[in-house]
């Protein structure tokens, strides 16, 4: 099979309007991928599936990746000549710019008839908030059906043209997208006797909230707060203190 670079060139020639970028994989596996122009994603996918040299008839794995906004600190060094005639000073200017985040859908394509692959293609959304629509590739490969629903569910990418875009694993009324990196778990924390580290921090916050709930005047006094094990145990650090002689 042709290399990803050759494939990129061929796609660029075939779809001059589309932007096809090569994404290098720095790891040992060196499975490089192609980032396709989302607008023409489905046309390119159809081409990949039907091109006689490729025949990528099998879309194995479809998944989402969340890339949150990243703060990048640039350091610009400028040499300022000293007006007093001394040695020139080097001034460092730090500027922080935010690299906007996005959501990404990754497709691993193989060919069952020609037994080669994988070709990895990626589609990116504009951002993580409102421009989260990508073309669905389910009309091209039916195997994307459940997997795109799962991405919609867990990452929040909206696949335009998907025949049945509903949540797959979470229930329909669920609001957030749990696989996003900034997902905040609901505070339904269960008390654990072995809490430490990050879990302990959360447990403490939970207990503060629980205590605050007790003094909340809005709560009916006829309905005392449930004596959950978490709220009755003041010290989560050492639940079992050992009797020392």
């Amino acid at each position: 099979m042709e290399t990803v670079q050759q494939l990129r060139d061929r796609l660029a020639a075939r779809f001059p309007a589309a932007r096809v970028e090569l994404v290098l994989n720095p790891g040992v596996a060196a499975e490089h991928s192609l980032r396709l122009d989302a607008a023409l994603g489905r046309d390119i996918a159809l081409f990949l599936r039907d091109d006689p040299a490729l025949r990528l008839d099998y879309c194995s794995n479809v998944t989402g990746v969340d890339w949150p906004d990243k703060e990048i600190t640039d350091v610009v060094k400028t040499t300022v000549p000293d007006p007093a005639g001394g040695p020139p000073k080097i001034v460092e200017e730090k500027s922080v710019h935010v690299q906007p985040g996005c959501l990404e859908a990754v497709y691993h394509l193989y060919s069952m008839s020609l037994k080669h692959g994988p070709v990895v293609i990626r589609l990116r959304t504009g951002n993580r908030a409102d421009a989260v629509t990508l073309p669905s590739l389910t009309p091209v490969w039916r195997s994307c059906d459940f997997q795109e629903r799962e991405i919609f569910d867990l990452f929040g990418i909206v696949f335009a043209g998907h025949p049945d875009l509903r949540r797959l694993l979470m229930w329909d009324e669920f609001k957030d997208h749990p696989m996003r990196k900034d997902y905040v778990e609901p505070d339904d924390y269960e008390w654990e006797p072995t809490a430490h580290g990050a879990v302990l921090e959360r447990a403490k916050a939970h207990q503060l909230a629980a205590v605050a709930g007790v003094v909340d005047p809005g709560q009916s006094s006829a309905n005392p707060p449930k004596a959950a094990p978490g709220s009755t145990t003041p010290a989560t650090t050492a639940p079992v203190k050992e009797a020392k002689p």
Partner: protein
Amino acid sequence: MSCSDFNDLDAELTAFGHPGGSSVRAVHDQFHGDLLEVSMGPQHPSTHGVFRMVATLDGEQIVKLKPVFGYLHRNHEKIAENTTYLGSMPYTDRLDYLCSMSTNWAYALAVEKLSGQAVPDRAQYLRIIMAELTRLVNHACLVGFLFNDLGTSFTPLLYAFREREKIIDLFEALSGSRMMCNYQRFGGCRVDPTPEWLAAARTLVENFPRFLDEYERMLTGNEIMLARTQGIGRLDPAHAVNAGLTGPVLRASGVDYDLRKVDGYGFYPRFDFRVPLGAQGDTYDRYMLRILEMRESVKILVQAFRDLPGGPIMDPKAKLRSFRPKAGEAYGRLEGPKGELGFYLISDGTPNPYRYRVRPPSLINLTLLEEMCLGHTIADAVVILGSIDIVLGEVDR
């Protein structure tokens, strides 16, 4: 039955129990007329776990079938992204809890691909031994459950479980646990089998064809079984490929795609075995294909026991703790007993994976469940579902 009867029925059922979601309700379809919508599961014994399907019936025929997932969802991927690479290994046991050995291997394979970790020869052979024993366990279970779904309550299942029990006793003696083996490590395996273990395993494998013969004598010619499975749930190869079906379900439709041959991962290219293929793609083919695959697995196992080399089982460079692969990504896949089991990992150089994804064969093999069931009865849908072979720990993750 008139439409008003249906409404009465609906009212009755609603009053009977669940106000929000009754398990049977009347629906009206402009094309079909009056239909009945039956919600099967999630606590139905024939759905192999907590799987639910909403079937719309026209008389007895299924005209629509929607699977509903998520009852066993625990966001395995998120848990794995918050723990170390090693820490996810025991969690992979819980994906496909019937086949933890091959799930472990799939994960180890992906991580080894990501980090460029080498695996010593003995470990490669041990992995193949474990994976093929797992295939025997899985297929024996599946065949037993399939007959349960057909209505031959329990006798075939217990015959299959008798054999499965012997294999998982071996797993227990080796890894310490019957089902949650947690046996593979990045760069090798955890425990080296003793000569007694190998001898016991070899005896078991040599006697396995006897069990298969007995099983087939008991069931394969059974006329009821033939009537219930032949021509039921046909799947044509073009659809199957497009829907990404893999494993025995795909091969029963006649598509020659077995990753042990195609990818040749591990030491499989050194082994001499054949890939059985079905012709009709019906439930009977899927059943027979499993029996034939078990026979091929026995062949592989015999070769593996014969050629098992000595030597270390862990690569000396392999690290257990503070394992940090270089930034990059990898997709590792292998032919699990249920189909292509893949792990997609993105590393950012930290001890935890940045992205960890399981490609669950059980979930994707359900893509065409509706198409396979259309026009059949509920009783057939149960058998078709049984022949696809799902494990909910993996479907819902």
